[in-house]
């Protein structure tokens, strides 16, 4: 999520100030155009599998007559200087690429006060977003995309739901557990040069220990001891989410990154749908992980204790359950599952500091739809949300696909506040 206009307004005011000092009358309405091209527009050209396309020519034109051109390098990137507070037209020369450009070869981009990125995707547009009209192929393809997304959501929401169930915390930094997991894997993968197949499990273990156990041990547990209220804790989690996000930007920058391996894969044709092998394998692992987790929660002693604490912490504690140990376990589990979701998302899409934040509301939607604090509910809810997000693009513009899931959540909350699988609560 960009902070765009407001996050950067100090700079905007600074510019206004300087311009004012120079004695040039400026209308506040029309923010001044700085004469120097001090911002950078990154044009990224890639195919549907996000493979970089080098050698594509792009031109950039601004209304003030400014124009610049560039050609994409081996990473599929062309860096073009632009000035702030303008709207530029970016054109990709179709003659320099071999495949058609999805969603057109001309884009309008508003440049405010920070660098921007424009992505051109090449291909037939069969990858889910493109095409129009409701055809069997399209529905099937979206359904597959929805199921894949559902696994990511389910992995994260299960932890969110368990943490809520055992501690009552509405954790607004749960998305960052996913992001942290992905970046941990990225560091192991790109900086330490470990193949992602090995780096991923290590990252999951590190995440479970550091971001899960550690976070609980050094932040939430002391707060519980201090008797911090649930609303206060919720606001603390917002502060934590903001902190984590910008620490990541500080060290890694804002641009999306990919793992070294499996970045580009040719989808395999399964009759009416296309799926990449990595999506199949990651989904299969997700099924195994989710099944084991659910069986463990239902069967093992610690799992039963977890559910007992979710039901009634005081009663569980009185019957000899070590509540703190259960909470610790839940954080470890939650962070581990979220880290896998992060690796999953990082492999199928890319690794970026906002990846968890973008999905956070879908996690909430999943958990609330299923019934806050229920295990089966979180998973059922995830599939409802994931599939709704994808299938909704049949009817509404792509920008609104997440909105569709959120809308569904709100409607369900109004009709059935306890969620699909939740129980009616006892009042008083």
């Amino acid at each position, binding site marked *: *999520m960009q902070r765009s*206009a407001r996050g950067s307004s100090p700079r905007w005011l600074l510019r206004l100030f300087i311009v004012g000092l120079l004695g040039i009358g400026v209308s506040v309405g029309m*923010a001044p155009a700085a004469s120097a091209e001090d911002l950078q527009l990154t044009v990224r050209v890639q195919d549907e599998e996000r493979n970089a396309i080098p050698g594509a020519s792009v031109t950039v034109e601004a209304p003030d007559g400014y124009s610049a051109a560039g050609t994409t390098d081996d990473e599929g990137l062309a860096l073009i200087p632009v000035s702030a507070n303008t709207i530029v037209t970016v054109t990709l020369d179709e003659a320099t690429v071999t495949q058609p450009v999805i969603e057109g070869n001309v884009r309008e981009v508003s440049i405010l006060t920070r660098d921007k990125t424009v992505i051109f995707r090449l291909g037939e547009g069969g990858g889910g977003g493109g095409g129009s009209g409701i055809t069997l192929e399209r529905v099937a393809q979206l359904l597959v995309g929805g199921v894949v997304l559902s696994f990511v959501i389910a992995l994260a929401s299960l932890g969110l739901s368990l943490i809520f169930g055992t501690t009552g915390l509405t954790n607004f930094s749960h998305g960052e557990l996913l992001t942290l997991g992905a970046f941990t894997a990225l560091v192991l993968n790109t900086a330490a040069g470990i193949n992602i197949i090995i780096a991923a499990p290590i990252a999951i273990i590190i995440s479970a220990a550091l971001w899960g156990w550690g976070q609980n041990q050094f932040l939430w547990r002391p707060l519980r001891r201090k008797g911090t209220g649930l609303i206060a804790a*919720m606001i603390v989690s917002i502060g934590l989410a903001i902190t984590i996000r*910008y620490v990541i930007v500080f060290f890694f920058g804002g641009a999306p990154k990919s793992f070294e391996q499996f970045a580009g894969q040719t989808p395999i044709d399964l009759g009416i749908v296309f799926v990449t092998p990595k999506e199949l394998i990651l989904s299969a692992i997700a099924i195994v992980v989710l099944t084991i987790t659910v069986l463990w929660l239902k069967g093992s002693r610690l799992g039963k204790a977890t559910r007992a604490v979710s039901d009634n912490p005081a009663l569980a504690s009185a019957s000899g359950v070590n509540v703190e140990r259960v909470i610790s376990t839940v954080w470890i589990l939650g962070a581990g599952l979220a880290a896998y979701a992060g690796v999953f998302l990082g492999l199928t899409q890319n690794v970026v500091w906002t990846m968890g934040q973008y999905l956070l509301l879908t996690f909430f939607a999943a958990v609330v739809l299923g019934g*806050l604090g229920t295990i089966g509910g979180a998973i059922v809810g995830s599939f409802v949300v994931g599939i709704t997000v994808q299938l909704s693009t049949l009817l509404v513009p792509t920008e609104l696909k997440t909105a569709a899931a959120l809308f569904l959540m709100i409607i369900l909350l109004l009709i059935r506040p306890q969620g699909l699988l939740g129980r009616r609560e006892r009042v008083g």
Partner: protein
Amino acid sequence: MDFGFILSQSLTQAIGVTAIIYCLAAIGLNVQFGYGGLLNFGQVAFVAVGAYAVGATVISVGSSLWLGVAIGIILAIVLALLLGIPTLRLRADYLAIVTIAASEIIRFAAKSSDFLGGAQGTTGAIGADFYALNPLPEWDRFEFGPISFTRVDMWVVLVGWCLIALVTLLTWALMRSPWGRVVKGIREDEDAVRSLGKNTYLFKIQILILGGVFGALGGMMSAISRGSVQPDGFVPDFTFFLYVMLILGGTARVMGPILGAAIFWFLLVFVEQVLKEGVSSGLITFISTTQIGPIRFILVGVGLMLLMIFRPQGILGDRKELMLDAR
């Protein structure tokens, strides 16, 4: 390092347009959350409605700004009713999730609406009617010690602070009244207030409307002063920053959001400028200029956590009163 410059920058920002916009929205949040205990995480939706109302009325429809202001207030009330009537019966944490979801739905919808300018938003002379009323003398700069504004800015800032004064006065008058007593009672324990014969639901809708209209006023100021309305300016972080300001200043204090917004922007700009000067003058070598932006927001995040943990009553809050907080 030129501290004079840094200080004048920071002070200008502390009373400047951005602080005014956030301040209005934060006063609204103070009515809802500070006094009424309503966990509204979607305050930015009201800001967006205000901004888009004037933006679209002037640019897309080509009508008068004042019509846009009226439409903005009406739409804020409508949004409060749409949001409040079904959701104000929900538990606090559900309300938080629903309001944040609603604000995102509105942002996504604005982004996909051609009428509202899509992802690019609406840009143009939104504030022309407003600037035409500028009675200030035709000076280049208006200087007050280290702070100075252009004529146009001066007018915006002047009107902005008058608006804040008005809204604050209204809040003060309401909160000392029996109406305010019921609202504060709802924050403490809604069931107790219901058991005393008050229709708490009605009061909650009223505070949602009131706070929402204040937020919409902030949005209008933003659209007028910036001459543009961008959908991605209305992300949930906007609301979160409002919480930082509110808690910094002191919740349920009439002056809390004003002090909070001013200090927030002062600190943010101060830190940014110090780091910038430090980097460019070679005093700070371990970070690059692109890392200054994130540092500011790390400070916001850490600040919010530390405030909430160690001084949740903020600057103006009463420690004694806070100790009684059972939430």
